[in-house]
């Protein structure tokens, strides 16, 4: 038995659905350097810009989608409906009518909160949520578009959707590509400018817009992209990119029922004057969009700012300096310095640390990233002085350690204690800057359970 713990190579996941891009959102060589932006909302750091989200998550697996398990993949679309309407072949989320109604209700209450009276609200919403011609509907080269897709319900294998319905509704849109674009543009501008002010020119009335922006902002945006106006105008780039992706209205397909007295497709029903309930997809705008943001842990956020310099964190309108962030995060989380140092250490070794909450520890260490390997280590961090003692964040009895080790090993991980050793002459003042890390040493220990030969042979017997 060796005195030092052996390194066990991480176990690769059997099925990997992603390809690895880069260890950090910073290119080697410094070309195409991109600054991402985040803000502080109730002591949490969130990133809103979709491109920044992609950059930070894809390159280094920073953060977690607030509506997802890890990677932000929230979609309003109902997967069972998408499967059901597979023949429709459209790239729009499909939702139930009921869900759409919820969104309408939410939008209504938001508008109400803004002081609009009931009458205006109804009018506004009716206008916004009216059925639309489907833009950009390509169907096996037919190029026809339709206002709605008719279908006899899931049991009927009716794929002849567009042509039938176009006959029904009498609307035909010229299939040429130019017109498709026009159609799209048309749909964009269809909205009353009052509700998509940011999509339009910048010289809209700033007054009530700002109000609207601030009120409706937190996790969702009703028609207006929040934050766009609330930020410094120096952030032009982000403003524009956000416009392009989020300010355009979200089109959804709502599965609605329609009573139809004549069903021309169904020969058997001809002659019957029965009312048949038909399901169809109607394209409407979503009046209450839910944007998924990326939430960064305090450690991840600080690392991106201090170690890589590729993130700016705003508090209100003010971008914070590194020292200020160090101070602020330490106030929010008293043990921040300790957990940050451990985080920084493991990142500087090329590993990906994620939060260890589920396993009762501080960090889980992944090689390369969660999609590729199972987490190898579960880490508890402690700060001690150079007499190797300190008031522990988490004093452990042997009993607790045994239990923690058991659950860790059951999840095929190893339990690691990470001691951060600071010189005894390091004062509070010294620690008020992250530069104090240069004088701090790291000691890793692995907890292993020793199986005596007796236990081993007992196991053999059975």
């Amino acid at each position: 038995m060796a005195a030092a713990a052996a390194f066990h190579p991480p176990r690769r996941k059997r099925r990997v659905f992603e390809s690895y891009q880069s260890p950090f959102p910073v290119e080697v060589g410094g070309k195409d350097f991109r600054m991402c932006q985040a803000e502080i909302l109730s002591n949490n750091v969130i990133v809103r810009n979709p491109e920044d989200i992609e950059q930070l998550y894809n390159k280094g697996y920073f953060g977690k989608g607030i509506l997802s398990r890890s990677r932000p993949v929230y979609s309003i679309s109902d997967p069972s409906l998408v499967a059901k309407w597979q023949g429709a072949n459209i790239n729009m989320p499909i939702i139930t009518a009921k869900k759409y109604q919820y969104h309408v209700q939410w939008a209504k209450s938001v508008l109400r909160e803004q002081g609009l009276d009931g009458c205006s609200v109804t009018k506004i919403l009716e206008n916004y949520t009216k059925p639309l011609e489907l833009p950009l509907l390509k169907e096996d080269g037919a190029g026809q578009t339709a206002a709605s897709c008719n279908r006899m319900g899931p049991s009927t294998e009716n794929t002849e959707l567009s042509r039938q319905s176009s006959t029904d509704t009498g609307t035909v849109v010229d299939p040429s590509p130019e017109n498709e674009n026009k159609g799209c543009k048309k749909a964009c501008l269809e909205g009353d400018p009052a509700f998509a002010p940011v999509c339009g020119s910048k010289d809209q009335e700033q007054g009530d817009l700002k109000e609207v922006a601030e009120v409706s902002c937190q996790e969702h945006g009703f028609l207006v992209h929040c934050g766009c106006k609330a930020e410094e105008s120096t952030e032009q780039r982000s403003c524009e990119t956000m416009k392009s992706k989020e300010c355009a209205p979200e089109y959804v397909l709502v599965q609605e029922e329609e009573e139809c007295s004549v069903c021309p497709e169904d020969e058997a029903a001809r002659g019957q004057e029965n009312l048949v309930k038909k399901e169809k997809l109607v394209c409407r705008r979503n009046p209450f969009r839910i944007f998924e943001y990326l939430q960064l842990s305090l450690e991840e956020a600080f690392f991106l700012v201090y170690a890589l310099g590729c993130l700016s964190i705003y508090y209100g309108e003010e971008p914070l300096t590194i020292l200020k962030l160090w101070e602020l995060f330490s106030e929010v989380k008293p043990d921040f310095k300790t957990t940050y140092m451990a985080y920084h250490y493991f990142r500087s070794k090329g590993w990906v640390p994620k939060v260890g909450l589920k396993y009762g520890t501080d960090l889980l260490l992944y090689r390369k990233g969660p999609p590729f390997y199972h987490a190898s280590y579960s880490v508890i961090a402690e700060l001690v002085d150079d007499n190797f003692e300190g008031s522990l964040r988490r004093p452990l009895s042997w009993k607790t350690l045994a239990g923690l080790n058991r659950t860790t090993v059951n999840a095929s991980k190893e339990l690691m204690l990470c001691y951060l050793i600071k010189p005894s002459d390091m004062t509070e003042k010294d620690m008020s800057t992250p530069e104090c890390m240069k004088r701090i040493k790291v000691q890793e220990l692995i907890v292993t359970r020793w199986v005596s030969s007796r236990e081993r042979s007992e196991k053999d017997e059975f």
Partner: protein
Amino acid sequence: GKSFCLRAHLNLPSGRLNAAQPLAASGRKAPKRAQGQKDFIPDGSAEQAEKLRLCQEEQWRLLSEERVQRRGNLVKAEWKPGQGIVELQSPAGKFWHTMGFTQHGKQCLLPEEALYLLECGSVQLFHRDLPLSIEEAYEILLSQEAMDLPHYQVCWDLQLVQGAQPLTVLSPYERQLNLESHCKSSGKHHRCGPKPSSILSQEKPLSEQPKESDAGSGEGESNPVPLDTGQKDSLSPSKSWAGDHKESSIGTHAPRWDFSTIVLPNMAPDQPCTHLPSPDDGLLPENVPGREVDAAYWCSCINQKQEKLSRKEREQRERESRYKSSVNADREVRRCSSWQEYKALLEQRSQQRMWKRPLHLWDQAVTPLLRPDEATSSAALLQQISVLQPSHILDGASRLDPEDMKIHFNVYQADAVARFKKTNPGKPYVRMCVRSFDEQIPSLRALKQVTYQSGDIPVVFALVDHGEIAFYSLKEFKLPVDVNH
């Protein structure tokens, strides 16, 4: 008959002690492992009560069994409370190979050894001329400070497996201290992990240095004779200029050439400049005449032979042609009429590419660690952000006072028993500390101290809880750097 220890009796296959065995009843042969959930809560059922009763009966039966021992084989030993040891009254048996010690010419045993042998039925213990029962022996021998019950249980656990022979040999650490002089002196520090190395730029010898990097001569190539007859290759740095170069770089006089007026003729096939005027006499060495020349004829003489490429070369060319392009294909580059202009163009382009450094991060007392333009590779990037120092378990351990974290035993591996000699036990497999489950785990300080004491032998903590023992160790580890993904 063969004598075996009490605990061995209790070492029944778990199937017999485990109350819940629904599948065992279905006629299988001796079950290898008990199936299903263990009964862990009293449910008040008659079935459970019956199972417990049977178990208890079995235990009592075993415990009350009288053991058969050959009297002749029993070694008599006497407990000496004053010294806290046991003195043998008759010669020792086989156990003397691994246990016991000699004192004042007499064979003696430590209390725990005596107790163990008593249970094995190898010795008979006397105190004040009366034989001690096992119960009495436990009470009397273990009441001393040197050894308490948990310690003893650990000894027991490690020694005992299947019967007669102990698989591991224990030898109290205190005894070892007298024999092992190497123990304290092991100051071997295992430095693991990469030493932080600074990225040094290589200083190349002068002759290999690219000309333009030389400080003294201003910008541009310092090839002073561009207008040639075409025979001298004027554009490649030649070694012969190195000497001159060196001299001029030391001095501070102004450069001899006005590079802004020197134009390098392009004689490439795509933009032929075939008329070369006569060079300035002042630039020519002595006795070397210069003349005007029309190089058109010469240009037509070159590039006559078709270059024959091997298949590999052809393939490589084909691959490269997909993404490689000539520098001259760039219009802006073609517009540059001198090297100076070209360098200016490059500078301008790199400025555009450089990231805008936000003031709130860079114009401050504390700035980000990474300078993106200095991250030339993934490893270099990691290097730049590595600010925390590694520490080894033995660092600073030598200055710690040995405290109350005692090593209680050395444990030797089974196969080492044959080679074991009390006077020269060899290297232990592990060293053991006995602790209680309710205690705090050792502080880093205590751990360093005990690890240092142990030298290069791993330390294991034995935790006792109502007869159950678990062994844990806290081992030094260095997470390897992962660079190449």
